[in-house]
């Protein structure tokens, strides 16, 4: 079973919930798909055994051959290529590495090389968690390529917990596309509510079952709760607003370490999700 932990708004507590769930259950594959800003390692403290470079293929053009590369530029849907009279200007940050230019260009004059866009780190953490995290290289736009490398490691019949990136665009959708259930973490503020509605919209369109965790409960207002009740959205848990929890967070201590009672609560949440999915 794959559980994705997502949120529209950033900083609402995705990683807090995902890591606490993993530590409470004790066994799972934990995947940090927030490859632009991965933070789960602070809380899970994995022993990293293996680092794999993530590369994409990018073209280079043998202009000294005097060949005409204009077909390559015409083909490129990302405008990563401009062909001048006797030169080719390539914009690597726009290239998706699709291989199209090599396909349509003069034979042998378009070559490809591997370009690093990030890393996947694999490790273990106690009690029985297989840990994977993607880390995008600063300056690269290939978020999805790093996530795609994580996809390969997923063993869907085990319990898989995915810590998602914020937002509702491609990196978020990519992280929930294979999940059986999505936990949406929000906070009771107008920003939290606005972005919760956006992420519910995404999940409903994708047909994914979901429930909500309200973090920093007590701050702001009660509009999020009212919205959930009115729309029949299940509230899985409320984590109180507490400066002590924030202090624990600041040094990378999990919610379960702050208060052992959360272990039982998260086990119950998992049970509830499993029950939901059977029905």
């Amino acid at each position, binding site marked *: 079973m794959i559980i994705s932990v997502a949120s529209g708004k*950033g900083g*609402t507590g995705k990683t807090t919930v995902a890591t606490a769930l993993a530590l409470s259950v004790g066994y799972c594959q934990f995947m940090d798909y927030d490859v632009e800003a991965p933070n789960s390692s602070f809380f899970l403290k994995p022993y990293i055994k293996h680092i794999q470079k993530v590369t994409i293929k990018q073209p280079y053009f043998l202009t000294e051959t005097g060949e005409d590369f204009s077909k390559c530029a015409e083909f490129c849907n990302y405008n990563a290529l401009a062909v001048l009279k006797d030169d080719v200007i390539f914009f690597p940050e726009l290239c998706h590495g699709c291989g199209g230019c090599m396909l349509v260009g003069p034979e042998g004059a378009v070559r490809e090389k591997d370009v690093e866009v990030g890393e996947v780190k694999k490790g273990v953490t106690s009690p029985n968690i297989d840990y994977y995290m993607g880390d995008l290289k600063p300056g690269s736009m290939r978020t999805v390529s790093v996530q795609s490398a994580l996809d390969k490691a997923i063993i869907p019949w085990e319990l898989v917990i995915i810590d998602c990136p914020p*937002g509702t665009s491609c*990196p*978020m959708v990519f992280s929930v596309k294979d999940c059986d259930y999505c936990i949406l973490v929000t906070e009771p503020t*107008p920003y939290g509510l606005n972005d919760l509605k956006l992420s519910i919209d995404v999940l409903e369109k994708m047909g994914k079952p979901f429930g909500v965790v309200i973090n920093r409960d007590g701050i702001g207002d009660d509009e999020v709760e009212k919205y959930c009740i009115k729309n029949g959205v299940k509230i899985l848990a409320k984590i109180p607003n507490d400066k002590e929890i924030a202090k624990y967070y*600041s040094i990378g201590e999990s919610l379960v370490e702050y208060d052992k009672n959360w272990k039982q609560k998260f086990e119950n949440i998992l049970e509830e999700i499993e029950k939901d999915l059977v029905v």
Partner: protein
Amino acid sequence: MKQMTIISGKGGTGKTTVASNFIKLANDHIAVDCDVDAANLHILLEPKIIKEEEFTGGAIATVTGECINCGKCEEACRFKAISDSETGIKINPIRCEGCGVCVYLCPANALELKPDRQGSSYVSETKFCILVHARLNPGAENSGLLITRIRNTAEDIANDKDLKLIIIDGAPGIGCPVISSLNGVDATLIVTEPTLSAISDFKKVYEVAKIFDIKVFVCVNKFDLNLENTKEIEDFCKSNNIKLIGKILYDDKVSIYLSQKKFIVDCSESEAAIEIKNMWENIKGYLYGR
């Protein structure tokens, strides 16, 4: 005309809160919300939309003809968007990046690239300035393109009305939307927090800002949450010659002001108000001082 972008790396550190207060304090300016997939600037600014435009960026491969199950498309697709091509054909729109390789290779002309309506962009009036914002459709891919489009719109308006400044609220992360909202700006403010997570993300997003050679300012929100971590941020700034221009106290009331649709700078009892005003003076001094 000057441009400045507010970013953070980690989400939820206070980008939009700082941005909206700067927007209230500034003069002769225009605002852009570049967090196009979870925009929040409109919540405090309460814009009235005066112009809406459809945004079509990119395309998705679609089966429109008779597939002969040759499997060529599946083999060539670098994004693993095509499956079951030898028994039927399935295209996963989430994975498809619209490159067109499959369309080119299909011997049966069974595939086409269909333009993908990916969102809308808006020009709005607010009490303080014009706001250019957008809504990217769920799962849409071209956030960078949409951001470039709304930034161009803002630049046109600013030139036309002879405005001095564009204030840009950025997205979390370090990827495509962040890069697109940093490209060509004069300065950036990174809002961070004294937590291990936020510090790690701050350093990553700083790497990105360095690539663009932009003047970087830093603000530590909730600095008293962990003074040791705040010290680490201060030391990092010092050794990298980054100007730390503000430290904001941890204050739960900020969320209450937000729920009441109040700007912090209007709440005279809030210490954060003074700090944000000072930060703004500092940035203004840099932008207009030269």
